[in-house]
């Protein structure tokens, strides 16, 4: 932060203005678009031939679409953590990270909704949810809270953007005509008067308070999609807390990955400093410990009892087919971050980046492990079905669609950073002024 004080406001503005894609930016975007197109083609095939193109069958009736959905909902929770909780707690170092967190939240929640439609056998009947919706169904609860969360997140992304739009409008020759028009459309009413700032401050505070229970709801309700059934591995009262703690962990991991990449490619070393990595590292340790605690709760008590219905499922996870993936997710997603980030050296940008990627990847596999193995352990024996019903490995269409959705979410973030300042300019300037006053 000390470095910031040596910079003039003009320099800061120049540094933080959105930049055109460089060589790597273009390659990156092209790859993402290509993955999205492959996903779109796979979805076209699914629409044409039906869900039979997936490898889901009557036992594993939910596959990577649903685990991907859970992953998206999980990672989107970070918006509420960094923006709302930190803001209300007056944690100032987090300011440069708020927009990163919020755009991750918005893009993830958009693709969470899309992937659910992809999973539907009859997507053309989507409107039935509103025409014939039954409020008793946990799916309806999810629809309601996710829509609410999306709206609040969008507002939390938009309102702090208004002062920045005013700054952006000053640089017409830099942004070009089309973007200038977009900025004017979105932010020309913002004069930056004291009264407007006051209203905006108030509104943001209200949104920050409102988003916390909604954020808890989206992931708790998502966990209830599983926990309201009788299935071994899902039938758990621990599920809400287990999901929430895991969600904050993967979200924080996602923010660290984004921080590192933006810092490197947009040369934001003065704004996203080693201090930020250090603080986020400590946060990751805390969240990992929390998630570890709920994992122990989730597995320890049923494994101690080994009830007949649970035993098959647990053995499969601990020492069966899913054991390599399970222990990879536990060690890579929990043990490595806890140990690695306890050391100061581990909290430097590069090791943080590596560990954060591990956290996110392990979290994705963890979601897969939550959804699929349970479905292969129904109460009734698996008989009188073709041999293929006894196993599940996603088809190429499923992989393509799932990866396409992940690429799509990254694409939204990439384009957002191309169009808008990824670090809030106005707030950075304000904080610099305040720091100088002291």
């Amino acid at each position, binding site marked *: 932060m000390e470095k910031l004080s040596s910079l003039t406001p003009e320099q800061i503005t120049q540094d933080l203005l959105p930049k055109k894609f460089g060589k790597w930016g273009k390659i990156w975007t092209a790859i993402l678009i290509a993955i999205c197109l492959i996903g779109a083609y796979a979805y076209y095939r699914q629409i044409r031939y039906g869900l039979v193109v997936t490898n889901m069958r009557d036992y594993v009736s939910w596959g990577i679409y649903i685990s991907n959905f859970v992953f998206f909902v999980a990672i989107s929770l970070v918006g509420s953590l960094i923006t709302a909780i930190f803001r209300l707690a007056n944690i100032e170092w987090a300011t440069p990270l708020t927009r990163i967190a919020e755009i991750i939240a918005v893009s993830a929640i958009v693709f969470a909704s899309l992937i659910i439609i992809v999973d*539907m056998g009859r997507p053309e009947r989507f409107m039935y949810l509103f025409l014939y919706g039954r409020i008793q169904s946990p799916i309806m609860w999810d629809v309601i809270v996710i829509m609410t969360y999306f709206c609040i997140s969008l507002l939390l992304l938009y309102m702090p953007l208004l002062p920045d739009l005013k700054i952006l409008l000053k640089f017409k020759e830099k942004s070009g005509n089309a973007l200038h028009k977009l900025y004017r459309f979105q932010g020309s009413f913002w004069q930056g008067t004291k009264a407007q700032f006051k209203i905006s401050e108030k509104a943001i505070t209200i949104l920050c308070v409102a988003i916390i229970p909604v954020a808890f709801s989206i992931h708790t309700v998502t966990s209830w999609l599983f926990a309201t059934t009788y299935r071994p591995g*899902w039938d758990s009262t621990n599920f809400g807390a287990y999901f929430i703690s895991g969600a904050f962990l993967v979200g924080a991991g996602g923010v660290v990955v984004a921080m590192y990449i933006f810092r490197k490619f947009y040369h934001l070393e003065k704004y996203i400093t080693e201090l930020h990595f250090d603080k986020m590292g400590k946060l990751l340790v805390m969240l990992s410990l929390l998630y570890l605690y709920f994992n122990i709760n989730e597995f320890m008590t049923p494994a101690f009892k080994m009830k007949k219905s649970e035993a098959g499922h647990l053995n499969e996870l601990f020492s069966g087919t899913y054991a390599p993936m399970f222990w990879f997710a536990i060690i890579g997603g929990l043990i490595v971050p806890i140990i690695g980030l306890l050391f100061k050296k581990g909290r430097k940008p590069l090791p943080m980046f590596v560990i954060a990627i591990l956290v996110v990847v392990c979290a994705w596999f963890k979601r897969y492990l939550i959804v699929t193995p349970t479905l292969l352990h129904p109460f009734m024996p698996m008989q009188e079905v073709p*041999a293929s019903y006894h196993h599940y490995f996603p088809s190429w269409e499923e992989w393509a669609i799932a990866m396409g959705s992940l690429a799509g979410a990254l694409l939204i973030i990439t384009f957002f950073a191309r169009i808008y300042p990824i670090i809030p300019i106005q707030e950075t300037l304000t904080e610099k002024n305040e720091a100088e006053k002291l």
Partner: protein
Amino acid sequence: MENKDTSRRDFLLTGILATTAIVAGCSDKKNPFTPEDTVTPSGKKVKLLSVDGEIIEVDEAFLKPVPHVPPVSIDESRRGIAGKKFVMVIDLAKCKNLKKCQSACNHMHQVHSSQNWLKVYAMEDADHTAPYWQPTQCMHCDEPPCVKVCPVDATFKREDGIVLIDNERCIGCRFCMAACPYSSRVFNWEPSDYKPTGDEEKIYSPENSIPQKVGTVSKCDFCPDRHREGKLPYCVEACPNGVFYFGDINEDTVTNGSETFRFSELIKDKAGYKLMEDLGTKPSVYYLPPVNRSFPFENGLENENETDKKLIAK
């Protein structure tokens, strides 16, 4: 008044005994239940069981197949048959895994060849206990977990106790499949490979469940379309060993087509039970334990496919 009474008795006879006097010209003046003029009694009498349990005799000439009744509307299928509460009893002592129930059910409901609405499981409750064959289909629970979770009211519980699916409403989210502890639901991943013969019902109704609709969930429907015609479900009719008893708990009667029992007595005498009662789902399907068996378990093995044989061997 007298005339009215006769017509009522006639109605009961025709309805319950799966016979009907064909309605010839339903004009206002004519009693719709008077037999056709052309019918001349043949003199041959057939003995039948009335609803009151009396044996009655009817002239053979009056026995006619029920005419084709078009399926009821979706609204009507959501309500159910008034005054009924359907129940099934499965006698495990009689089952030898012939799977006649299954093939009849699959054929009549046009189920995809890799799927079954009715499965005959090879069960063994614990080590050293005796294996037995257990036909299992939708339990038509009184607290159905599938109905609880359905977001669009596509699967519903009717007043006659049957749980049905409206395949024109189902969005294919498959939450019901995750919720059902009996694994009784199947999803139409692709169009059914059933080869139509031409004389199937063409009009869809949740009561007949045909034709199967791709992208939606389906399951055993307890054949309510058959009750409307006074017939027993396909599985009950197809089983040569009389494993399945079907009936109405309000009438306290169940029948497998050849034998009829008081439901309450049958359950009491043979110690009937339900599957996974501890879950609180309150199934409408009861089981009679596999004691004093008609066949040894091994007799059923020949009908098992290779995958399942290996599983059972384990």
